């Protein structure tokens, strides 16, 4: 239980996790569900419980596509994607927290790679 | 008296059918609002004579709020429509005379809106507290 971190996540995400009624619709709709260790509904619940460290250490935070399907379909207006984003930011802002480095880029790029992709990936994975 | 200690006197007129019930609901749900608010029960917002509001100010009230059913939902069908006109004109006149317009307010609170009642009262008390004492209409002889 890490209360400071929990508060930070709640503040930066602007999400009220207590509104969640545990229906699981976010997880029922998530396209990255299969790639994740912790699923969207667990993100919400674990933030409520203050289990932020586990989330920050999990690769799940890099699997969210920010597609906002969970946000759109949540019947309680909880916005799980914003929680994931806040946890990922907390992780990448830490020393050595970058998930993507410039050195990796040449192996990734091909002739058609749109600039948009690299900009976006850096925004999501690197501080 | 410093601002921190200042406790405003607030008179709230509530119609019996909606707002008084809304105030009761705020109580039933244990929703806090400052004790500075004292409620007078009237059958309908249209029972509130502008004289009562002036009287309150004369006697040292710092704020007066009138709560009634939402327009269209009056228990007596049309009462709050008349109240709305009377209060609009009275408030405008008080403002014209230089009385701080923030000291007077009308809110429509239904019997189901306990939370709204508490929110409105918290907000009104905050506003009036920030204004400080009513000096412009109080009859100093009425002060004990």
């Amino acid at each position, binding site marked *: 239980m890490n209360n400071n971190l929990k508060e930070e996540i709640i*503040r930066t995400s*602007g999400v009220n996790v207590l509104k969640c009624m545990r229906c699981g619709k976010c997880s029922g709709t998530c396209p*990255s569900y299969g*790639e994740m260790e912790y699923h969207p509904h667990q993100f919400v619940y674990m933030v409520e419980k203050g289990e932020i460290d586990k989330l920050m250490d999990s690769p799940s935070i890099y699997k969210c*596509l920010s597609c906002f399907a969970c946000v759109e379909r949540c019947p309680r207006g909880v916005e799980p994607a914003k929680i994931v984003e806040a946890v990922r930011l907390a992780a990448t802002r830490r020393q050595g927290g970058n*998930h993507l480095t410039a050195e990796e880029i040449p192996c990734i790029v091909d002739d058609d790679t*749109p600039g*948009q992709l690299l900009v*976006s*990936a850096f925004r999501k994975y690197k501080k | 008296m410093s601002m921190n200690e200042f406790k405003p006197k607030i008179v709230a007129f509530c119609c019996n059918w909606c707002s008084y019930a809304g105030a009761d609901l705020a109580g039933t749900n244990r929703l806090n609002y400052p004790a500075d608010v004292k409620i007078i029960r009237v059958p309908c917002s249209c029972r509130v004579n502008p004289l009562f509001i002036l009287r309150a100010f004369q006697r040292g009230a710092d704020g007066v709020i009138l709560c009634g059913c939402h327009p269209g939902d009056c228990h007596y069908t049309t009462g709050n429509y008349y109240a709305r006109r009377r209060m609009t004109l009275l408030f405008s006149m008080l403002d014209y005379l230089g009385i701080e317009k923030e000291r007077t307010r009308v809110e429509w609170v239904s019997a189901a809106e306990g939370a709204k009642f508490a929110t409105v009262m918290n907000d009104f008390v905050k506003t009036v507290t920030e204004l400080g004492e009513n000096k412009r209409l109080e009859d100093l002889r009425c002060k004990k």
Partner: protein
Amino acid sequence: MTFSYYPGCTLKTKAKELDGYARRSAEALGITLDELADWQCCGGVYTTAKDEIATKLSSVRALMSAKKEGNALVTLCSACHNVIKQTKHELDTNDDMNLRASNYMGCNAREAADTEVIHYLEMLRDVVGFDKIKEKVVNPLTGRKIAAYYGCLLLRPGKTMQFDNPENPKIIEDFIRAIGATPVIYPMRNECCGGYITVKDAEAAKKNSTAVHESAAGFGADCIITACPLCRYNLIKAESPIPVIYFTELLAEALGVK
């Protein structure tokens, strides 16, 4: 009718055709697209964190320039549209964001939110009108069965984007009808292509994109159209059996300016 126009980086490099066809079509439809003089990259994705500010400033600047020009701002790339529209929304609703943006920029940032932001498709629908486009079509694409691929960025978050019904959109389908073709409705049209994740996990992205083109092809589409260079990239990379092209290309073709 003149609009300020924000093309975005990718439209200047890998997605030149998206931009080119759009400009030519606009001209044919009597619309002047006036490219903002000093636009900067939108950042590709909008960061929802409340404490992020620097990454949103380029959008604030774009909005501010358009306001100075006195025009509504037209975007074309889904990502740019999403970022700028969300920035505008936050300026409109978040006082803290406003204050900090104002401090950074040394002006009243809220004014930037006065700028109306519309996507090129919205311009076609609301300004030109699909009926009008229908009249202007010289080369109707009769018989073509086309799948509209919306992806995420145009539609969501629905309350902010106000683009179309996020679960059952119809703007691109209406567009397809306007140019004489037949729209193919398939359930994956508003699901994610995999987006930026392709950088770190190409397999995961491919899974998503495959589901999209399989669904479209399964419902008999002979072509997928999109407004997003990244969607197109991902779909093609996932070996879509049917062509994936920008909607502006079809528009230009129908208007005879390809």
